[in-house]
């Protein structure tokens, strides 16, 4: 079937199988490979993109369901070569190690902050319940989210000096 999606501001029309998942449309048709696949049970969130500005797990949306809608991926986040505040915060707070969960994590946080601009640490952690990371232990991801929200962390949980 023919589908018509706008991805990072660019309209893409393609003839795809009815069962094509949005994540494969993004990766293989739109050729945007930052969005990753980490599981097959909608558990890990690595595939998170924005659909009409809201975070969704693109592995559990059919390209057909997204027909006529707007998709934003990590690659579409920076503007005029400047990192989005969430991207910058991840860099400054060492919020990524291997980077595989990162695109989904960043998009989930962009959406989270849009809906709750000044979350508490607990709200950030709960808000990320659908995004798994194996490298960072989440500590710096949470700091990045809070830094991006321009809220200082509730407690100074950084290094305790000896």
């Amino acid at each position: 079937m023919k589908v018509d999606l706008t991805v990072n501001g660019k309209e893409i029309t393609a003839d795809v199988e009815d069962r094509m998942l949005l994540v494969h449309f993004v990766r293989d048709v739109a050729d945007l490979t930052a969005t990753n696949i980490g599981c097959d049970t909608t558990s890990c969130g690595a595939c998170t993109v924005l659909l009409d500005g809201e975070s969704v797990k693109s592995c559990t949306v059919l390209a057909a369901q997204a027909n006529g809608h707007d998709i934003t991926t990590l690659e579409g986040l920076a503007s005029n070569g400047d990192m989005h505040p969430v991207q910058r915060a991840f860099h400054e707070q060492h919020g990524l190690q291997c980077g595989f969960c990162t695109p989904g994590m960043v998009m989930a946080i962009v959406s989270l902050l849009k809906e709750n601009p000044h979350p508490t640490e607990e709200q950030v952690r709960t808000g990320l319940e659908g995004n798994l990371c194996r490298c960072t232990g989440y500590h710096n991801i949470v700091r990045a989210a809070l830094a991006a929200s321009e809220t200082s962390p509730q407690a100074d949980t950084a290094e305790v000096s000896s």
Partner: protein
Amino acid sequence: MIPSSFTYKRASSAEEACDLAAEYGEDAKYLAGGHSLLPLMKLRLAAPEMLIDLGGLRDLSYLTDQGSHIAIGALTRHHDVQHSDLLAREVPLLAHAAGQVGDPQIRHRGTIGGSIAHGDPASDLPAVLLALDATLVARGTDGTREIPIGEFFQGLFETALEPDELLTEIRVPKPPAGGRGWSFQKFTQRAIDWAIVGVAVQGGHVALVNMAGTPLRATAVEAALAGGASPAEAAAHAAEGSSAVSDIRATREYREHLARVLTSRALTETASRAA
């Protein structure tokens, strides 16, 4: 990881959706948010030959005050139920419970109707609607009918819906003056997990998540409460009439224990909210 092949059709109206379902029968499934159905299809535990996408039926997404009840369109997303000011005022139990379903991404897609129609006793909303004594409105090729929630869940993944019937609305009665206390106790290992056991209380109604093949009203608890029992005394009856399973998360015995503990906590919280 990939569903087996199917034909996709996008319905432009509820009428068209029903007609398609009637035409294709058992080979077709409705697709709402897709977050109950697509995960099953990706593991190839379900393989419908046709998906009828209801995503375009925006007129089935609404939350309106109908005086004695709140009318919720079946395609209202969990996110919108969670953040509804109307529900926060009138039926906070439902708004709160919707915020416990899955994660934020899932709540941006999953719908209340889709969740109910799926009929999973481990889901949060079926038990919540049971405690709220909701009425469901279903539309088929033969017309529309109302289904009391008590008759809706018939077995594991089995509901009263005929193959062509489409859930269009959920009617939630506003709790009466003496029954406005509420509580929702969802016991999980991790935040994202399905409830090992859950308890939904609205006033004197107590419903259990994942204690049987369908959501269950804890009628023995309700009777004890009506008879003047304290929360702890009433909660002792929580597992009566249940048929919990043993699985990798919990044994039946442990689930029955949790039902009692969570019911006691839920009833205490309900009482404090009613005050």
